[in-house]
């Protein structure tokens, strides 16, 4: 009986750890997005400051590609929106993950109790 519970416990623990990892991953992804967002904001501001006289280049690999100022602005804006959307997605994902992990945690704790009781019984028996 105790062993069965033990096994169960182990499985649950693994699941829980997996979940935790997922959570952390999504968290980091979200953070990255956040930084990108900040950066793109700055770029947008800078581009607004510029006038048509200067040329804008985009670095693609080792190549600097000339870009039109307006084009660049549009691109940057689009990117910004994309990033925002991504962040939202990740947020919802993160919330779900958190809930799941909490539930799992509770399950784990209950299992642990059971296991301990079983252990106690086993000890008693023995």
């Amino acid at each position, binding site marked *: 009986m105790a062993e069965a519970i033990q096994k169960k416990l182990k499985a649950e623990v693994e699941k829980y750890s997996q979940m935790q990892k997922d959570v952390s991953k999504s968290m980091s992804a979200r953070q990255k997005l956040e930084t990108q967002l900040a950066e793109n904001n700055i770029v947008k501001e*800078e*581009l607004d*400051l510029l006038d048509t006289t200067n*040329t804008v*280049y985009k670095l693609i690999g080792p190549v600097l590609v000339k870009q039109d100022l307006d084009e660049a602005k549009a691109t940057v804006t689009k990117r910004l929106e994309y990033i925002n959307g991504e962040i939202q997605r990740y947020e919802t994902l993160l919330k779900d993950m958190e809930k799941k992990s909490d539930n799992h945690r509770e399950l784990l704790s209950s299992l642990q109790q059971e296991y301990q009781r079983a252990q106690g019984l086993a000890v008693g028996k023995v």
Partner: protein
Amino acid sequence: MAGKGKMNIEHLGAVARLREEHQKVVKDCESRVLHWKKVSGDYEALNDRLKTLPDQLSYDIMVPFGPLAFMPGKLVHTNEVTALLGDNWFAKCSTKQAQKIVDHRMKYVKSELNDLSKTMKNFEARVGLVKDLETISSSKGGYVDIREDTENTDIAVTKGKQRKAHKPNSKPKLDAVLHLKKEVEENEEESRDGGSGKDITTKEELWARLDELEKLEELQDEQDRLSYNADMNGEDTSSFSSEEEKEGDAAPPENGLGQKPSWTSAPHSKAQPSSDREAEDDDEEEEGGGLPTIFFSHTTEPKKVRINTGKNTMLKFSERKEQKDLSKRKNKNGHSNGHSHHELHKISTPADIYRVFVDMKNGEPIPRKSILKSRSRENSVCSESSESSAADFEERRMTGRSLSHDDTTHSDTSDGITEEESPTAVPLHPASRFEAFSGTVVEKDPMPSAVPHLTIAPPALPTILERKQEEVAPDVAPPQQAPKRVSKFKAARLLQK
């Protein structure tokens, strides 16, 4: 104690960990601050470079070829700079524009630095706190935890109730006085035992105690006020006329200001019933109780009681009783001064004292008028002044009353006998006093006979008569038969006619 020790140890461990965490954060903050400082330094250098770069059209420089070689070369297009905007975006711009960009970035860096420094400060403070906590828990330092065991839950309960008790007096004063001793004892007990467990009594005692303390405070305030208000005497007395009750007390206007305790309280007694009652009682006590009292040196001569009353320092004995006896006679002399003396000597109430203060004039003792009363109108024609007329009215009343009262003992009961005498006495009396008075004497009861019955006044005090002729006339004028009340103003007016 074992439990406590255990807790301490656990506490210690937790606190230590907390401190470590805090320190970690602080370190992290420090590193970030360093980083940002470096960045800002770099930007500063860049700024300088951008400033100086366009000075020359071209520069001769050693161009790095790979990691180990250099080649002499020239730096051209000094004003053109390709600046990274972020996220793999570049922009070709002039140095000035580049400088603007740099400025922007500098601003951002500065703000970051500020935030970091703030957080660092916060955490440093926290670290300090945690350190202290550590020392406390380890009980190494000189810190002592102050604990106060509250054993008696009733006190906590009554606290709320006590708040309610703070409302205006709910209990009569007497209760406070009675409970005083009891309260004190009980409170002492309580404090000693730390809660004796008498649930009900403690609560009630506390309430009662609270009320009684309140009242004591009020008493104190009133007494202070009374002594304070010594100067307010005259003003108070001027309002006497409207108060029937202030018969004897109104007279006191003359009361020596020097004699604060008893005298001043008396006139105010009616104005402030409760406290004054006490004051009066006090006076009486002082009078008869042998407490510090004012001693009169009674001599056979027209008595001189030295009282500091400002203008007149000599106050003489009143010969009220005499007056009463002589009420029927026109010319009374101070016959048997000594006799009246004796009677007057007997002072059992504060009011009696006032009878002592009497002016001597023309052989006729006249109660002294309050020095606070304005004397400006002494010889004026006007008699409408409320003050004087009021005072006079008051005096008249008092005269009548005194007459009535004097007849009997110093009881408060009115007397019918003297009532009849009073009307006659009053008009005659003033008439005799002022020889100059040439007006007709109209007999009128200066004071409604019903009034003295109503009043609870102590034996009438000698009225302070500093008569003006006009005022005296009104005195006499009013019909004696009319027991109905005549306002002082009306009376004055009538008499003036």
